[in-house]
């Protein structure tokens, strides 16, 4: 069926032929057609990663099976969402080892973006917990693991679907005793203070994230709310329950006017967010869904950005260049662009995947509504800061990077291209993102 698709940011529409294979054999047949294609999950990539102008888009949502949990390992269809998986396994005391800020991503998408969560500094990214996976390529269907076909296994992690279609994943789960989190919160009146605290004591917590205000100037510049947590055990709660988080209760019914989110309203929101947080609070019990996925309470929240849409800028820099984080916040604040609370996190060591985003150090993610004329060039300047700091931007969030910067940010790009050439010599797997960044021609 022909359909116009966009990413979560709502920009750069593309019409593609969408089909929904119901089995791995269906996928293999579609791939055998030789048509240019890309797989798509729930469309949470912000840019053009899961669409292909005038090409075939294979929705993985037909591949949604959840096997039994055996010794903490589950085999799931790639089209299963983390939401569906958690609803199925949490009542048995198993949680996903890594979750991004939304449960509305598929397992295939989690592999394609090699997603990370608030526990990256302890547990690594999604790839770390994948025991094996099945990948349908133009050269056949392969079973990949860190020991079997390791090159292709790692080349697929974070490669935005460009090596083939993941059909199923064998995943390690995390044991939990309750559906609650024990959360410590503290406010910091500046970036330096919060970064020092995170550097010194993040290791004591499994989960940690800071929200940074990138709009306020003056003495409160870079003020932040730091929340850190661990899973509550049965000793922490009176009544240990394992009910899964509920689905979105509120939906945004239509696109908001484009000017709803302006400098003033976003500034007010940031202010409210900061004031609402306790100055210092320890060991608060918070439901798992509220802690991990605060935005999942509202479905289609991206419509709040209106017709104009938005971009997200997420970058990471290694520890020794941590000053780049302050530099970026400084430039954003000075340019007075509207930006929602930035999400600041520490990353643990990188994994062997050439296109995986995280590297040991810091990451900051910013939501920026479109509109300001200076935004495009400002982000180009931030790219230069990030490159000088030996960092990179996250391809799953990208919708505007210039192609010449990809190799600078991902110096092992060649390893990925070599692995791709082996299973997809004709570049059958491509996407608007791959074309824009010259990752795979057509």
């Amino acid at each position, binding site marked *: 069926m022909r359909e*116009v698709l966009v990413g979560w*940011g709502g*920009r*750069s*529409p*593309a*019409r*593609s032929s969408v089909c929904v294979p119901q089995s791995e054999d269906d996928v293999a047949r579609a791939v055998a057609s030789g048509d240019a294609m890309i797989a798509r999950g729930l469309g949470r990539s912000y*840019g*053009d990663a899961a669409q*292909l*102008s*005038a*090409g075939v888009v294979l929705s993985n949502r037909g591949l949604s099976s959840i096997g039994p949990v055996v010794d903490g390992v589950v085999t799931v269809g790639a089209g299963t969402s983390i939401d569906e998986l958690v609803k199925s396994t949490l009542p048995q005391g198993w949680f996903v080892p890594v979750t991004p800020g939304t449960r509305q991503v598929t397992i295939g998408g989690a592999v394609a973006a090699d997603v990370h969560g608030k526990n990256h500094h302890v547990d690594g990214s999604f790839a770390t917990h994948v025991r094996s996976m099945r990948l349908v390529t133009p050269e056949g269907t392969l079973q990949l693991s860190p020991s079997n076909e390791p090159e292709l296994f790692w080349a697929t992690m974070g490669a935005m679907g460009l090596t083939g279609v993941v059909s199923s994943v064998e995943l390690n789960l995390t044991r939990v005793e309750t559906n609650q989190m024990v959360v410590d919160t503290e406010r910091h009146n500046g970036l330096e203070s919060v970064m020092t605290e995170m550097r010194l004591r993040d290791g004591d917590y499994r989960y940690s994230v800071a929200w940074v205000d990138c709009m306020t100037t003056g003495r409160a510049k870079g003020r932040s709310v730091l929340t850190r947590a661990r899973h509550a055990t049965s000793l922490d709660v009176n009544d240990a329950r394992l009910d899964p988080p509920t689905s979105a209760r509120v939906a945004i019914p239509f696109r908001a006017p*484009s000017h709803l989110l302006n400098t003033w309203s976003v500034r007010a929101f940031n202010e409210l967010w900061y004031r609402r947080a306790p100055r210092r609070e320890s060991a608060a019990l918070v439901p798992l869904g509220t802690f991990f996925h605060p935005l999942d309470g509202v479905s289609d929240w991206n419509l709040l950005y209106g*017709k*104009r*849409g938005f*971009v997200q800028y997420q970058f990471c820099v290694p520890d020794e260049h941590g000053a780049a984080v302050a530099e970026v916040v400084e430039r954003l604040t000075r340019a007075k662009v509207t930006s929602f609370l930035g999400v600041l996190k520490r990353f643990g060591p990188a994994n062997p995947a050439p296109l995986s985003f995280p590297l040991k150090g810091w990451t900051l993610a910013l939501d920026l509504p*479109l*509109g300001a*004329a200076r*935004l*495009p*060039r400002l982000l180009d300047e931030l790219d230069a800061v990030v490159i000088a700091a030996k960092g990179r931007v996250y391809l799953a969030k990208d*919708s*505007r*990077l*210039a*192609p010449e910067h990809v190799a600078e940010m991902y110096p092992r790009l060649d390893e990925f291209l070599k692995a791709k050439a082996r299973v997809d010599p004709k570049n059958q797997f491509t996407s*608007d*993102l791959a*074309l*824009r960044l010259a990752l795979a021609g*057509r």
Partner: protein
Amino acid sequence: MENAFGEPQNVVVLGGTSDIARAILQRLCAARTRSVVLCGRDATRLLDAGADATAHGATSVTSVLFNAEEPHNAAATVREAFEKMHGHVDLVIVAIGALGEQRRDEDDGDAVERLITVNFTWPGAALAEVRRLLVAQGSGRVLVISSIAAVRTRRSGYLYASAKAGLDNMCLGLADSLRGTGVTLQILRPGVVRTRMSRGLPERPFTTDAGDVAEYVMRALATDDLIIWSPPILRYVAFAIRQLPRAFWRRLDDALER
């Protein structure tokens, strides 16, 4: 492919020597544009425009020659331009037009035919082919340079204005026809712009330079607005112009021409 700000990598310009098109192209090349196909009548001036694009960051510039007085060539010209791009065409700029000279041309059937052909028939025919090719691509953007004159024709320039009004109206329908195709069309309606084409015209209120127009266009690529006014205040001026009683509008025009 274009980025989230609507900044293209590959651009085809129909009317590549237009001052407004050149100003837009300079800024596009300074952003993400690397491949350009320029179509125009004057080979020397196309080369000049190409050098300009290269100086601003384009790495591949080719050109296609055509004559806008021959509308039967329009579709072939567009096809040739797309073929020379060797890849996805992200943006097509339609910047063809001639002002003519109202008093000289208004009693001359041949001159009127030429004026309508250059301003409406050729670009209209070209847009049909652009539409077909972009829809087949599944994504792309068209920027058509219309004019504030298209809003309401007036005594002192009704030939040019009516031809532009024809094109402008066609584009309104065309834009609607593109819903659900992944292709976006935007209509640029500038006021008087200081260019080669408008040389010798009296300065009207809200007259701008081509560079200003280009800045408004760059901003509008990110918003997908159907109508791009340059300067933006013309949106309200146009609204007022449409409401004026006919006699008043005629007298205003007389006064401005005097």
